């Protein structure tokens, strides 16, 4: 709301500088966002919160200042008598829906000369951000900005009958509004009819036909009160927000209809020569009572945290035009001004007291802490994973949670689990993401565009899939992507590319950090977005919790990556069930261990895990570790074969192993591998 200080000064004495006004208004809840200097005035840009429609006018702001500075409020000149002896222009008002329109006040003015409004009025309208049109429309707008009450002027001679009928529209009924747009109405919308058809959408906008024109001489002035939720629904449905609907939907003052009409009459008489010709009619089927709230001093003191003195309570609320009636010791029955649409409960009154006591004057205290803090289960998991990945050289990414059509097809896992947003922001945000991979691939691509070819990213976030009951279910996921070198190119060693085993190692390091000791890695070809040659799933307790592999060739080409990218996607909450196994301490061995390397030649189709299992099945208690330290394929061994060098570590917790004993173990391992898989010892 733009408030002109020069205009404001008509209603309350202003001695303060615009800057001081800005500070003072801000501290009572009317944030002044900016001060704009204009000719002869300063414009305060006041942010009025949606609970304070009473402040959407110059008098509204003046009222707050009058209370704050304890100065009298001056009201503008108004027409006291809105009735004349010779009521020349009769008309009728009929409210068919008193729920939605509890009060409708109107009168008719004639002898009007439509023209330009005077300079002073035009300047004030412009200062407040409105465009001057003609004196009649300008006057209604002026009174709106002055008193906060929306008004509407109909050209009386255009009305087909001398009637105002307030009723709901018929479904499909149409009318042209003042802005020249044809509006289709429905049965929830309240209309103003002239007995034959609609002439205005109540509280929102008038009709084009009955608009004030240069030839208008007689005006029917409407000053009404409409129910906020009805106006809001209509305004939303039509996508039409006006100064009028903005105020009605927040709550106007039903007791302001007659004063606002009186003010318009005075200005019309002064500026457009019009006089009352049809007596005011005030149809008010059911009197609305002001809100009355019980206030206890004790409650105010204990909520704010400081003793509220009787005198302070009484003087503050009285200055704000609340009527207090004592109904016990330190207890009042408080009648609220009808313009205060925000008043409902004692807490609302207490806020008034706090506002004027000054939030800055409330003493700062700390309540006793009767709770023990606790992280959510996800916290520890997430932070452990984050620190591990940072240590391994991954940067943390965050992508928007949305996905486009092609994502859900290209990265689908079979069944359509997509969840669509009913009102997406853009076409490429139509769905919620079902996997993290597409966002990570795009992030890699963006970095490629910046000539970064070594990219390692991870993202911890949610994916959203349709649950069995049809509603979206979200799951915490970890996504990882790595591509390019294993380290930055450097002089110490030739460049190694980030490959499948780097990704696998990354995952296993995470599992180690989470103390998950038991898992399986199995080949898979169930993921269309991964190359089937090197895709694998991670299983814990026979449950698939993740997948890893290289981005499929077709997607690699689609995103023009032109280098392999390795991805992993892990379901975080499945990890939670198994993570952080208790730590067990085992006393350190007192005797040295012995290592032996053996190089065996086996078929290259033999999975390494089978060799591991075969050795483990011998159950040599002293064999504490098997490591694969070298892999060789080439001229020196027969084709179709692979040479594996295993490092076996032996340890006896009770004594030092003799050379002969260790050799016995090695021979046992070798003969078992030979018997099971024909593994030959590789000759030097």
């Amino acid at each position, binding site marked *: 709301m733009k408030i002109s200080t020069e205009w404001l000064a008509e209603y309350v004495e202003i001695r303060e500088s615009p800057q001081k006004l800005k500070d003072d208004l801000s501290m009572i*809840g009317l944030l002044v966002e900016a001060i704009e200097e204009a000719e002869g005035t300063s414009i305060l840009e006041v942010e009025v919160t949606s609970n304070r429609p009473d402040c959407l006018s110059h008098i509204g702001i003046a009222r707050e200042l009058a209370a704050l500075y304890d100065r009298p409020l001056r009201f503008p000149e108004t027409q006291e008598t809105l009735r004349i002896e010779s009521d020349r222009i009769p008309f009728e008002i009929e409210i068919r829906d008193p729920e939605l329109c509890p009060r409708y006040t109107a009168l008719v003015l004639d002898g009007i000369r439509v023209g330009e409004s005077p300079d002073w009025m035009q300047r004030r309208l412009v200062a407040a951000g409105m465009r001057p049109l003609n004196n009649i429309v300008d006057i209604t707008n002026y009174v709106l900005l002055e008193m906060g009450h929306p008004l509407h002027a109909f050209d009386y001679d255009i009305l087909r009958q001398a009637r105002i009928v307030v009723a709901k529209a018929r479904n499909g009924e149409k009318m042209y509004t003042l802005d020249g747009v044809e509006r289709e109405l429905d049965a929830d919308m309240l209309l103003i009819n002239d007995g034959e058809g609609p002439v205005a959408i109540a509280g929102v906008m008038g009709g084009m036909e009955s608009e004030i024109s240069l030839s208008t001489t007689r005006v029917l002035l409407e000053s009404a009160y409409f129910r906020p939720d009805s106006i809001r629904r209509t305004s939303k449905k039509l996508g039409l927000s006006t100064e009028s609907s903005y105020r009605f939907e927040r709550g106007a003052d039903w007791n302001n209809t007659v004063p606002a009409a009186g003010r318009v009459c005075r200005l019309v008489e002064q500026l457009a020569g019009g006089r009352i010709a049809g007596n005011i009619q005030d149809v008010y089927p059911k009197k609305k009572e002001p809100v009355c709230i019980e206030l206890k001093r004790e409650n105010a003191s*204990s*909520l704010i945290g400081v003793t509220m003195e009787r005198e302070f309570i009484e003087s503050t609320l009285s200055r704000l035009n609340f009527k207090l009636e004592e109904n016990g010791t330190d207890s009042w029955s408080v009648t609220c001004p009808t313009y205060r649409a925000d008043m409902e409960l004692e807490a609302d009154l207490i806020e008034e007291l706090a506002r004027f006591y000054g939030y800055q004057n409330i003493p*700062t205290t700390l309540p006793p802490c*009767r709770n023990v803090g606790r992280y959510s289960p996800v*916290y520890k998991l997430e932070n452990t994973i*984050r620190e591990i990945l940072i240590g391994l050289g991954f940067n943390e990414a965050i992508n928007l949670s949305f996905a486009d059509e092609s994502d859900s097809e290209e990265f689908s896992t079979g069944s359509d689990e997509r969840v669509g947003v009913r009102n997406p922001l853009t076409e490429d945000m139509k769905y919620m993401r079902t996997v993290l991979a597409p966002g990570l691939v795009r992030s890699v691509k963006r970095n490629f565009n910046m000539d970064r070819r070594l990219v390692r990213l991870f993202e911890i976030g949610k994916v959203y899939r349709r649950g069995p009951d049809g509603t979206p279910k979200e799951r915490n996921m970890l996504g990882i992507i790595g591509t390019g070198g294993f380290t930055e190119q450097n002089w110490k060693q030739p460049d190694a590319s980030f490959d499948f085993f780097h990704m696998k190692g990354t995952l296993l390091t995470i599992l180690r950090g989470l103390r998950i000791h038991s898992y399986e890695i199995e080949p898979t070809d169930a993921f269309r977005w991964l190359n089937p040659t090197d895709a694998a799933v991670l299983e814990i307790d026979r449950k698939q919790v993740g997948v890893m592999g290289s981005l499929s060739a077709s997607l690699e080409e689609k995103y023009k990556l032109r280098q392999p990218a390795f991805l992993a996607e892990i379901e975080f909450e499945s990890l939670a069930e198994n993570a952080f196994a208790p730590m067990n301490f085992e006393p350190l061995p007192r005797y040295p261990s012995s290592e032996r390397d053996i190089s065996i030649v086996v078929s290259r189709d033999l999975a390494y895990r089978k060799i591991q299992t075969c050795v483990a099945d011998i159950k040599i208690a002293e064999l504490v570790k098997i490591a694969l330290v070298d892999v060789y394929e080439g001229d020196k061994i027969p084709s179709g074969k692979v040479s594996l060098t295993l490092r076996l570590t032996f340890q006896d917790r009770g004594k030092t192993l003799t050379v002969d004993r260790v050799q016995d173990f090695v021979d046992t391992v070798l003969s078992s591998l030979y018997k099971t898989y024909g593994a030959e010892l590789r000759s030097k």
Partner: protein
Amino acid sequence: MSQSIEGLQKRFDEDFAAITDMDTWKSVRDKFLAREGGIITTGMKRLRELPKEERPVFGQAMNRLRSSVEKQLQERYAELKKAAITGGQRHLDVTRPGFPYALGSAHPIKRLQADIEQILVNMGFRLFDLPEVERDYYNFEALNMPPNHPARDEQDTFYFDDTMLLRTHCTSVDVHAMEGLRPPIRAASTGKVYRRDPFDATHSPMFYQVDVVVIDEGITMGDMKGMLEVFLKQVFHSDIKMRLRPGFFPFVEPGAEVDISCIFCNGAGCPTCKQSGWIEILGAGMCHPKVLRMSGIDDSRYTGFAWGMGIDRVPMLKYGVEDIRLLFDNDLRFLEQF
């Protein structure tokens, strides 16, 4: 006896002088100091064969000899080693780059989110990981925003259907906590929230928030101020000042807007704070009695407060990030700076 020590010393000196490389060094060391058969080692072992009265003197002499031999060998080792490493040069070129171990980075939002969670846990809050896909009831209705409430306008919402939506704030923690816990309550939740705002330099359809709620007997606005001050000083800096202004949020009454003194100009006025010296940082207030009642809290016995803060804004402010989209671009040139 003393002659034999002198003889030993002489034999060592001759051999020592003949050391030219690591191999000869090793053979000299083994000749004199090997555990099995080293000349000095064996000599020490033979101490026992001497008459008792001669042992101390001879023993001390042998010990002296051994430590002098060890010391000479150690020095010679270092000389040989240095020559081997540098190939005769005086120094390795230590100015060449070290090995480029990779080190990643936490996203600034996530780092701050984790920091905030830690601060809150230390302040006695229980943290909840709450759904982003939320019921209208938890996001709006139970927070005193019935359908057609004007405040819903300020939070343009993504919907899935008539009841399910993407939460527009983390304030749903108020309702979940009140439904699931009994006072005294200190609950908090952080995470992504969504508003149907166009993606531009100052708006994002997705951002991060933290919301907290405290409910107990006798909780006052003063308590809210105190807890806020502790929180904000930990998040920002212990020197910041805090200011509360009346504000409006449908789920609190009285409501407050909370400013902190500008972290760039310390309140003197600068472009970031639009010369005001203050930066609007969060919304707070005393839990609305209707909200308490709707979630089954006896509002005649308990009071409480709640606050909510945007997390993204903090790194943007702290580091002067002017375009919010940078936070979600995952550009390494950006991420690597944190």
